[in-house]
């Protein structure tokens, strides 16, 4: 395959200013269990290639799944033709920041390769999770468990001489349960995931995940509804990671900055409390957003976005790095060979402070403690909204009665400025999920417990 791609680059680079080709072979496995019954076992293998051509400052992108010389050459011609087609509409010609030439073959480490684990063992893991949930309480009426693995072998080659292969394996288990009591219905969910194999289930006991979900669903059945209004909040590391990614991180993506995000022209200005630092990185072993090279062949790295409260860097691909006159940060990522790379985050986290969890609680005389993130969205003006699964009133420094999940909201900058206490219990990774900016992308989150102020959309 490598020889064929070299020939395709040799052919295509005569037609355009810059050309890159990315090929992927993807093996996916899924088993789904619902209320103890196997609902789905599915296994698939797909392959394809894409070409991205830069011609006179304009991009064209084409895909093929037929991996012959004729088809690959035709794909390159289409990409060049599309670049020429949109060239006339460009007001500003695209240029790429320089990056070092890479030649490498990478396999991210996996101890238990999912493709070598037999299906019976996979089914056995999720059956144990299902049994744990139903054993917890007879008020559990529904439980769905999914186990997925995704292995991609990528080959990247460009007209500047960079070529590398990278094999990444991802494994994920998710569980969703519903408890009922009369007309009261309470759902709960959790997942674990990483760029790892089945060793994730040695590190994190799957039954423990099931117990968390079962306890949450039953406990919240009779919990009161969330309160409404603005509160002092202590948020758990999963929600902190979401704050770092969704509320602040998106605003620091250079494509969004150029469009006019709230962080536009703010490098060097204070955007968070002085004790707050925020990173986006792709190096943590096993974290879901980790990789060695991005989809433009730029090495992944740790990027300090906010340092001690001051905005230090945006997140870049080669195109925006050129515009801003900086080095690319390795954030160009594509969902698959069928998509062109966009600026995407990797593992995004707020760094820890020096408060113990107990000190945070004891010091909060009036507020709420929020746990369990459920995803969220952010807006152009910095306004964000996240779902949370459960909360507790804090009264006189003690955790009080629970309340049901709700949406929390605030302005990203204000919430970051309002952080007045950072825990020392930092965790990175395994909270992973998908970010949905045009394409679905694996990302991970991290942080300590912290205290700030937010609005809760409750009763």
């Amino acid at each position: 395959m490598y020889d064929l791609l070299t020939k395709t680059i040799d052919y295509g680079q005569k037609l355009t200013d810059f050309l890159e080709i990315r090929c992927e072979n993807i093996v996916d496995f899924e088993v789904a269990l619902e209320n103890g019954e196997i609902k789905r076992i599915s296994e698939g293998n797909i392959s394809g290639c894409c070409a991205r051509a830069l011609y006179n400052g304009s991009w064209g992108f084409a895909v093929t799944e037929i991996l012959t010389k004729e088809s690959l050459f035709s794909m390159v011609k289409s990409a060049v033709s599309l670049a020429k087609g949109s060239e006339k509409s460009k007001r500003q010609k695209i240029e790429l920041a320089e990056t070092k030439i890479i030649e490498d073959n990478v396999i991210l480490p996996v101890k238990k390769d999912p493709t070598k684990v037999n299906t019976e063992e996979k089914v056995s893991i999720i059956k144990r999770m299902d049994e744990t949930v139903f054993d917890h309480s007879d008020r559990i009426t529904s439980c769905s468990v999914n186990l997925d693995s995704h292995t991609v072998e990528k080959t990247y080659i460009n007209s500047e001489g960079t070529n590398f292969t990278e094999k990444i394996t991802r494994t994920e288990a998710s569980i969703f349960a519903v408890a009922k009591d009369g007309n009261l219905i309470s759902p709960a969910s959790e997942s674990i995931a990483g760029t790892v194999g089945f060793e994730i289930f040695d590190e994190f006991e799957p039954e423990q995940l099931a117990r968390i979900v079962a306890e949450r669903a039953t406990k919240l059945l009779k919990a009161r509804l969330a309160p409404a209004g603005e509160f002092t909040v202590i948020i758990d590391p999963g929600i902190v990671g979401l704050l770092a990614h969704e509320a602040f991180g998106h605003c620091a993506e250079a494509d969004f900055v150029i469009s006019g995000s709230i962080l536009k022209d703010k490098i060097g200005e204070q955007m968070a409390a002085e004790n707050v630092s925020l990173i986006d990185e792709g190096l943590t072993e096993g974290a879901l957003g980790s990789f060695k090279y991005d989809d433009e062949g730029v090495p992944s790295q740790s990027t300090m976005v906010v340092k001690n409260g001051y905005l230090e860097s945006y997140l870049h691909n080669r195109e925006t790095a050129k515009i801003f006159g900086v080095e690319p940060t390795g954030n160009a990522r594509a969902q698959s060979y069928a998509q062109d790379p966009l600026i995407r985050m990797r593992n995004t986290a707020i760094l820890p402070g020096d408060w113990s969890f107990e000190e945070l609680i004891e010091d909060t005389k009036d507020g709420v403690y929020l746990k369990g993130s459920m995803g969220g969205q952010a807006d152009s003006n910095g306004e964000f909204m996240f779902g949370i699964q459960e909360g507790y009133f804090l009264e006189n420094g003690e955790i009080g009665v629970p309340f049901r999940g709700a949406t929390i909201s605030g302005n990203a900058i204000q919430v970051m400025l309002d952080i007045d206490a950072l825990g020392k219990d930092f965790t990175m990774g395994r909270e992973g999920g998908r970010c949905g900016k045009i394409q679905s992308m694996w990302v991970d989150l991290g942080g300590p417990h912290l205290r700030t102020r937010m609005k809760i959309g409750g009763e």
Partner: protein
Amino acid sequence: MQEADYVSYIEDAMKKTLRKGANEIEAFYSKANNLNVRIEKNEIINEKQQKTHGVGFRTIKNRAMGYSYTNQFESHIILETASKSLDIAKISQSYDFWEGLPTPKKLPPVKEIYDPKISNISAEEAVELALVMLNTVREDKRVQVDTGSVHIMDVETILLNSNDIFYEEKSTYIVLLLMCFARTDEDIGSFAFDYEASRKYNIDPVELAIRIKDLTIRGLGAKEPESRECEILLDPNATREILGTISYGINSENIQKKSSPFEGKIGQKVASELLSIEDHGVIDGGLNSTSFDGEGTPPQRTKILTKGELKAYTYNCFTAFREGKESTGHASRASYLTPPRVGVTNLIVGLGSKTKEELIDEIDYGIYIGRISGNFRPQNGMISGTIKQGFLIEHGEITTPLIGTMVSGNTLDWMKNVTGIGKEPKKTFIGPIPPLRIEGVKIIGRK
């Protein structure tokens, strides 16, 4: 290699897998040609052409199912993929109630789901459509385009099974989408989002762009309202949570796994008398219309809610057989990558008699909601989110744009509290939907 070769490989693999011991086998082939022009940063960013295809095999052995797929059309890979689905079926769970894959039936005629004019849109024409949208919204320089796209899709599906089903269908789609915000020296507005989608080449990019430009500018100078309970008017784009509660609740998969709020409620009042909803899988030009569902059952017209009373659930073969029923033609599959699940087709909300303006005119104090950005739980209806493209309604008129405003409540209650339905539907991705007016909704703004 031609498509006829692919089909012959698939048929050959199905025959050989049956000879290896499969009791039944189904193949779902889909081919999609996508042309996409993306706008970002007030510029056309790129043009993309994606030609993708693949086949998924569902094999049944001793009433247990296995699924496997590939996009590599070499005969030995197709055969290996079909065999893999048999291997999976052999270790999967057996369901005694399984009666078999569908048999051939007369398919309903479905008009206006394929338009050769869409298939023939050139890359240059797609760029021109994007430029028209971009230039129109940018006539006002305060408007910034965060994201926009012109998406052209031409899809062909072929469904085959061992009961001699061989169905083919061609579909086309065109989707124009814009997400903009306004920026001045003093203010940044929130995102304004809207789209137009059609199976025919009948969309006006200028009309869409003018609508979004106006909406974007109207969002400047936003204020936070006071917290209170009031009437809301949901734009068709903001009805996703209510309709999501209904489509989740009537899905037989959710009924059978006991996670639906509508379990055991057929024949009961679950919504206002004003609310009637049908699922119509064969409506002419419907964005989700098709002449056969994801496993070969003809779709139909199903009454879901009649004057607030719950009438039916939606089934595919598997969930129908579990209850000794027949499929309602709701086997849904997004592509060859997944086996069929259960879904809805086009939801048709019964229209009211008033225009949007007349519905607003009757509100003394309320909120107009363009979108809700937040979370809702269809299992229990709990909703909590931030209001987007929202405006205050005072004395029958839309006045101040809103910021920092949240809404919370329960969509199961909202369904019961509908006080008005518009007579002018918008063609949304889930069907033609009119505005809905709801009373007694909690709004969280200033203390």
